[in-house]
């Protein structure tokens, strides 16, 4: 939810900055994801772009030459939207942004004194697609004089905390560090006419605990005053008209959803809360026709439904320009029922969101009174006397405060007085060791729930870490055996792939699998997630088709497959290519190593038809697959120690364009490891992304202490297909750099 900082401060009195308050809210368990708007650092000034040129060392970066009126400078910029002539926010060195200070940086070899900012970096919104382009600005002017605004805090409210889904609610939680805050008194001016003489309310379902109605007569519908509009829009609510805006304001203010009916459209001035008995077609306020199924809770007048309870009103009772009399609703609907109906209708609203999480029943009357007062302020009219009520506010429940157990679970010695004070500040009423749970909290059922409250309010730093008892290294389970198999296969030259667990319709056709044999997903968002795989082979065959850059491929996967009757872990190996080994050859060595029989495996060649269906252009594709559950108990392992590779990996982004492969062999000092050479090759050129050794041997003819090493080197260009010319140039760089570093001689 979005919270306006100034609105929070109406209840939570503070001199702290928005960032400080945001940090406090996060520490209380409602994570503030962003703070937007507010004070912009005066070091950010308006600059004009004079020239845009490419960065010499990075395809995605540009260099912008800018002027601030006083001086010209060049900054590196990653955004695609900059053009000559634009006015942009320029953060000079020393600018303090939300979470870092701008320093003189060197970006890929180019100095950048300061940076150009996106909307997000300016703290004004979520947009980070490009640099914020300024309008009606003067070069050199402070950006703060153009764009300062009231800060908005956006926070992720967890589903258990419906009570903080409002400005008052969040403020109450914040203030609880010091004291319990109360809602300010209202100043309601009622007429002599009685509400009960105008409207009646009757509840005919057990899903509605409480229903309050008020009537305001003689309102004038029109646009809201600017300040109300601005307030709503700042937190993402659309302004509709003064009456509807007032109800929305109260929801965002207090957390209680309200609804306004045009009284003139409510037949016999009767309000009946009931459930749909037979499927009924209605048109909701958003103009959509919807079918209401039995058991959906609705508000009816004498003849028909006029609102879907807790979700959305219907068009037939909408407040419009002609409306003069209003019936205002504030109610408490059952969370589960609202959630079920909202799901059924695929209609999530601000109201249903709050009812699903629970509203403050005891605060209902205050909410309806505040809304009535506000409607009168913005739309005029007279408020009839009294509230018409059906149902009752449920009595609060109590939980035992288990002081000792709270301390035992937290691992902290809290004093009883401290626990009582924390709970009292949160609105609990403590008496005789029992805590009466405040009406707005729907997440407190037992003493364990109080632990959370005590720990967060007293501060997590009070919890001093205590290490758990040491225990011995546990016995290795099947996981370790599977890792040993992976080690063996990788050591013998195979690459491990990991594929999706899904099959698409297309996959089942290519693999000739009858979908009837597959477990089907009921609600896939994407086509390709329709079935669960019952074999690893289709995925591996797709991998073969996907890798035209490699002539010979030997790959394996260990993963779960899903048969109708059970889930099991399989191992599958696929090889392809003229010089690749046949799967049988790999298996033979595998079985010898682990002491099992090849008969456990399903081994076969893929025929031409199937290759075609999988769009594989390589010859000699052979496959083996086995259920590991059946062979694991039979395998013999020397040990089950886990091997963790310490080699440094230098990952390079893979180009969309095809690479070229070159082979080089060198005579080199035998003490130099293959990894050292590899690292040096990768350092020599950014075009090399993959370097693999394929030969290493000693021979007298190379001289004393020398060896021959040979590498496959793949070169690519991120922006285009790698040309032979560039490749030649880069290969020369590699050769000279190995010569320089290791005195390595190229073998011709």
């Amino acid at each position, binding site marked *: 939810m979005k919270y306006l900082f100034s609105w929070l401060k109406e209840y939570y009195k503070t001199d702290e900055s928005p960032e400080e308050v945001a940090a406090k809210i996060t520490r209380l368990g409602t994570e503030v994801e962003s703070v937007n708007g507010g004070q912009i650092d005066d070091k950010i000034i308006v600059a004009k772009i004079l020239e845009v040129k490419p960065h010499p060392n990075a395809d995605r970066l540009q260099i912008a030459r800018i002027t601030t009126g006083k001086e010209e400078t060049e900054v590196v910029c990653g955004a695609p939207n900059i053009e000559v002539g634009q006015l942009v926010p320029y953060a000079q060195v020393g600018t303090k942004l939300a979470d870092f200070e701008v320093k003189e940086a060197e970006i890929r070899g180019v100095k950048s004194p300061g940076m150009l900012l996106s909307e997000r970096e300016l703290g004004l919104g979520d947009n980070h697609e490009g640099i914020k382009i300024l309008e009606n600005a003067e070069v050199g002017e402070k950006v703060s004089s153009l764009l300062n605004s009231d800060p908005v805090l956006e926070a992720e409210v967890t589903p258990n905390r419906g009570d903080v889904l409002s400005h008052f609610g969040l403020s109450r939680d914040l203030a609880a560090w010091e004291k319990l805050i109360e809602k300010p008194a209202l100043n309601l001016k009622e007429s002599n006419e009685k509400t009960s003489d105008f409207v009646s309310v009757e509840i005919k379902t057990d899903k509605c605990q409480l229903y309050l109605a008020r009537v305001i007569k003689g309102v004038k519908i029109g646009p809201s005053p600017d300040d109300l509009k601005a307030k709503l829009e700042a937190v993402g609510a659309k302004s509709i008209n003064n009456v509807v805006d007032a109800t929305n304001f109260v929801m965002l203010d207090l957390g209680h959803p309200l609804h306004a009916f045009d009284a003139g459209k409510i037949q016999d001035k009767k309000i009946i809360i009931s459930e749909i008995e037979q499927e009924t077609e209605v048109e909701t306020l958003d103009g959509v026709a919807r079918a209401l199924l039995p058991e959906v809770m609705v508000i009816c007048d004498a003849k028909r439904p006029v609102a879907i309870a807790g979700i959305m009103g219907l068009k037939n009772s909408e407040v419009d320009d002609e409306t003069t009399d209003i019936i205002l609703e504030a109610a408490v609907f059952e969370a589960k029922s609202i959630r079920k109906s909202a799901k059924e209708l695929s209609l999530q609203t601000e109201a249903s969101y709050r009812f699903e999480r629970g509203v403050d029943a005891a605060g209902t009357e205050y909410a309806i009174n505040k809304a009535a007062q506000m409607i009168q302020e913005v739309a005029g009219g007279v408020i009839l006397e009294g509230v018409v009520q059906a149902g009752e506010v449920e009595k609060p429940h109590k939980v035992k405060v288990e002081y000792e157990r709270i301390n035992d679970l937290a691992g902290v010695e809290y004093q009883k007085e401290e626990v009582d004070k924390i709970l009292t500040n949160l609105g609990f009423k403590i008496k005789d060791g029992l805590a009466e749970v405040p009406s707005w909290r729907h997440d407190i059922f037992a003493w364990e729930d109080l632990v959370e409250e005590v720990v967060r309010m007293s501060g997590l730093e009070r919890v001093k*870490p205590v290490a758990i008892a040491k225990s011995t290294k546990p016995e290795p389970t099947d996981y370790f055996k599977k890792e040993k198999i992976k080690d063996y296969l990788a050591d013998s030259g195979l690459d491990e792939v990991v594929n999706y667990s899904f099959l698409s319709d297309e996959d089942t056709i290519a693999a000739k699998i009858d979908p009837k044999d597959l477990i089907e997903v009921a609600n896939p968002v994407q086509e390709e997630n329709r079935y669960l795989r019952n074999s690893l082979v289709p995925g591996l065959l797709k991998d073969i088709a996907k890798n035209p850059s490699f002539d010979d491929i030997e790959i394996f996967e260990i993963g779960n497959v899903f048969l109708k009757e059970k889930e099991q872990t399989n191992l599958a190996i696929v090889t392809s290519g003229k010089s690749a080994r046949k799967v049988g050859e790999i298996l033979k060595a595998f079985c010898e190593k682990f002491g099992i029989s090849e008969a456990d495996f399903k081994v076969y060649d893929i025929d031409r038809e199937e290759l075609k269906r999988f769009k594989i252009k390589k010859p000699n594709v052979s496959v083996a697959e086995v259920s590991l559950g059946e062979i694991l108990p039979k395998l013999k392992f020397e040990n089950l120690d886990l091997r963790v590779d310490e080699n440094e990996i230098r990952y390079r982004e893979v180009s969309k364009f095809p690479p070229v492969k070159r082979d080089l062999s060198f005579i080199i000092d035998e003490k130099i490891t293959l990894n050292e050479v590899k690292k040096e090759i990768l350092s020599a050129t950014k075009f090399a992304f993959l370097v693999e050794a394929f030969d290493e041997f000693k021979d007298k003819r190379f001289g004393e202490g020398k060896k021959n090493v040979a590498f496959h080197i793949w070169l690519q260009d991120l922006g285009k297909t790698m040309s032979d010319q560039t490749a030649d140039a880069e290969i020369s760089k590699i050769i000279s750099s190995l010569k320089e570093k290791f005195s390595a001689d190229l073998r011709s």
Partner: protein
Amino acid sequence: MKEGHLHPSTQFLRELVQIFSELGFEVYESPEVDSEWYNFDALNIPSNHPARDVQDTFWLKDGRVLRTHTSNGQVRYGETHKPPIKIIIPGRCYRNEATDATHETTFNQLEGLYIDKKVTVANLFATLDQIINKIYDGKVEYRIRPHHYSFVEPGYDVDIKVGSKWRELLGSGMVHPTVLKNMGINPDEYSGFAFGLGFDRMILNKHDIEDIRLLLSGDLRFLRQF
């Protein structure tokens, strides 16, 4: 001679498993397809509760689900084992959504579970501190903040600082008494903590990988770099 390569996820998980093995956690594996009970209800996530919205679930036509977390192994393991329980559950989890460079239907999680007499929040924080310092070699700034998960009470998130931003690393908390009961363990006698970390993001950060989909791409130009 030809070099073979292990998948980056395999390599990374091994590092994690090694850290946990040294702390005495046993590796337990639970099924990827599971019942609504083990994935949700047993973990105190009832139907018709907004907590279910936290994840988009793949429902299967036979009424089961693709697990949304490896927490499905908690109650399964608890049913057949007596405390002390000290396990990690690594494995593949699923989220029913459209994929892009930062969203994936298929991701890896590692769940930890420790149940014994008198386990405290202080124990949880100490264990988190150990784990984080081992994973990042002591070179990371982290914070713990309260958070809500239905299957723990109280619950906490851990964020680490990546560049200038806080990024969520893991969720954790004290095992909810209802969950203990569902394991057949008496919550008056035992308590425990659980934590779950999604480690794909950690792999991407470690190697500066730009697109999460590369992990399951089968692209050997990518895989053979590891």
